[in-house]
């Protein structure tokens, strides 16, 4: 620092601070402000229009007594765990396969990544047709001769959520694959050479040496997949609309339906505030663990 005066923190890099005012305002007013507004109104008895009529924790009590909300939460947990595991595993597997310096890698990479470029609505509708017993996979296999073949998850209460999972995986694993592939390419070739000299088999090198080195990539992938899980809504609406019955309901859809179809804003706010709380409960300790530690090391 060449200035003789002690630099004032506030006026340091003044131009860049002025330039970022719009974004700061957006963040504070829209994200923080509207979130606080929503939290505050979740303690009111707002119906179709927001009204400041205090009801305390009534909305939350009702929320946790509602079967549909509990079903939604269970579905989200089931979908979330399976989606996370399978998309990471599939993504890594595909990336490792592509990493074998195969011919036509660009073609495969494009094919695997393409679903991610589609909107969830398109994915949902496509898979709705594919899983439709009268037109989709079941019909195709039956026409091929296996006349007793049954594959219709979306018409079955217990299996419908797995039908949604299938569509979600089809859409999401491509992105994980690309991230992983970038990570694999970032691994120093000397590591591979050293492993080969030591006579470690390829799959062992992947699992025990390369994988731990790709930790930052995994963190990125986990965050991206997790946000996709929490906000899952359009896929459900397009593919099953929560059905059959309530078997594929999810929290985000509960919020939407409460606000716009049940005309009960207070209940919708309470549900969205609960979702936010759950996310914070998971995110805050994890981010301290993940990012807090590294700052000390620097």
């Amino acid at each position, binding site marked *: 620092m060449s200035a003789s005066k002690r630099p004032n923190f506030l006026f340091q890099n003044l131009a860049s601070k002025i330039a970022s005012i719009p974004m700061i305002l957006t963040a504070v007013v829209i994200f923080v402000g509207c979130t606080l507004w929503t939290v505050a109104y979740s303690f009111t008895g707002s119906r*179709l229009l927001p009204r400041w009529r205090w009801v305390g924790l009534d909305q939350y009590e009702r929320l946790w007594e509602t079967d549909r909300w509990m*079903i939604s939460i269970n579905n989200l947990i089931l979908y979330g765990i399976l989606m996370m595991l399978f998309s990471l595993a599939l993504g890594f597997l595909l990336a490792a396969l592509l990493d074998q310096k195969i011919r036509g890698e660009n073609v495969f990479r494009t094919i695997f990544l393409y679903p991610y470029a589609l909107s969830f609505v398109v994915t949902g509708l496509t898979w709705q047709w594919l899983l439709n017993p009268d037109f989709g996979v079941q019909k195709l296999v039956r026409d091929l001769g296996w006349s007793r073949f049954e594959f219709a998850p979306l018409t079955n*209460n217990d299996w419908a959520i797995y039908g949604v999972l299938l569509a979600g995986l089809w859409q999401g694993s491509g992105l994980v694959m690309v991230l992983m592939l970038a990570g694999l390419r970032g691994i120093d070739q000397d590591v591979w050479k050293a492993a080969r000299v030591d006579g470690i088999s390829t799959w062992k090198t992947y699992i025990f040496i390369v994988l731990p080195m790709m930790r930052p990539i995994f963190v990125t992938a986990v965050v991206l997949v997790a946000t996709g899980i929490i906000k899952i809504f359009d896929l459900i609406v397009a593919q099953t609309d929560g059905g*059959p019955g*309530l078997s594929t309901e999810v929290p985000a859809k509960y919020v939407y339906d409460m606000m*716009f*179809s*049940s005309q009960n804003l207070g209940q919708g706010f309470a549900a969205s505030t609960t979702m936010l709380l759950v996310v914070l409960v998971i995110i805050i300790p994890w981010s301290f663990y993940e990012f807090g530690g590294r700052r000390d090391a620097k």
Partner: protein
Amino acid sequence: MKTFKFSALAASAMAIATSAPAADLEVVHWWTSGGEAAAVAEFAKALDATGKHKWIDGAIAGGGGTNAIPAVVSRMLGGDPVGAAQFNHGRQAEELVAEGLFLDLTDLAEKEGWRDFVFPTSLLDACTLDGRLYCVPVNIHSWQWIWLNNGAFAKAGVDVPSNWGEFVASADALRAAGVAPMATGSQAWQSSGLITNVLAVSLVGTEAWARVNVQKDAAFAGGPEYAAVFEAAEVARSLSADIEVTDWNLATAAVITGQAAAQIMGDWAQGEFAVANAVAGEDYTCLPGLGENKVLQLGGDAFYFPKNKDADVEAAQLELASLMMSKQVQVNFNLKKGSLPVRGDVDLSAANDCMRQGLAILAEGNVLPGGDMALTRDTVESINDLMVQFWNSDMSAAEVQQKYAALIASAD
């Protein structure tokens, strides 16, 4: 003939109007199926025929207005209101009316004497708040019908039933003949309407229904008399198990093709039979009130006119309101829609067997208000969620009744 009708209509409309303000009127509704679109086109033709105003069609798909209503509300709150908006009769728009967001139609209604010819008058009451009128009811739809495929019963070798009890008794014969006894879509509003509107009104009667839905007597809803509703629902659930469909019209299609023998559905199902060229009384039979208690519940659609700053738009709104209520437009619209007109004085000689049965019941005054008029959207949706959960699981009749009673107890 049609062109003559319309030019006559246009002439009369022009005679009414004193000044000539012209405006484009954006009308939002959710009538998107074939028959529905044809019906709403009658309104558009009538408005365009005035030669001044123009109908801008704002159809937003989604049964029950699930997508249209949020759009209408946010446009109003955002200061860019639409010209006219469809709602169901009753409490759906209650809060918006109370906020003073809709045009007051009282003067127009008094000038034209709506109260003298709208039948039943309760339709207007549902549009009224503090003595002022805010909407135009355009049709009457009722839920309490069961549609039977005559051919399916012939195949099973049994007579076409004349009431619910006979129908349940014929189920085994139907199954033996390879016909599914019933078809019901898996969506919430279908199972909910079937149980709380049709079975309740038809099997335990109008008064019992009103005690639960209007007076919100939760103890009675959980009591032994009302248990009959949920026991019948359990039977209906098992009779519907053979066919897995989602949409109501696919269930109706299963009945039309003879795959299933019966469907409990509102009178809008009749449009599907009509499209398939099936004749009431010959190819299919309809039993209002399931043949047990011949009562119809008054539901239906109404148009509201959001308040607008532009005087020309307001003039167009009032003119459209007047047209919707006029005799000729009422007839044209309801013949296409399959619903009953809201005027007691129109000529419906073109009506078929089922529609005449419906009109006769209306004339006798065996009507009760729709569930939407008695309960808020919030309660209705909670009940829908419960009923669809019951319908798609093995929940017992006793359990669903107890949960239903709890919802009635917390209704406001």
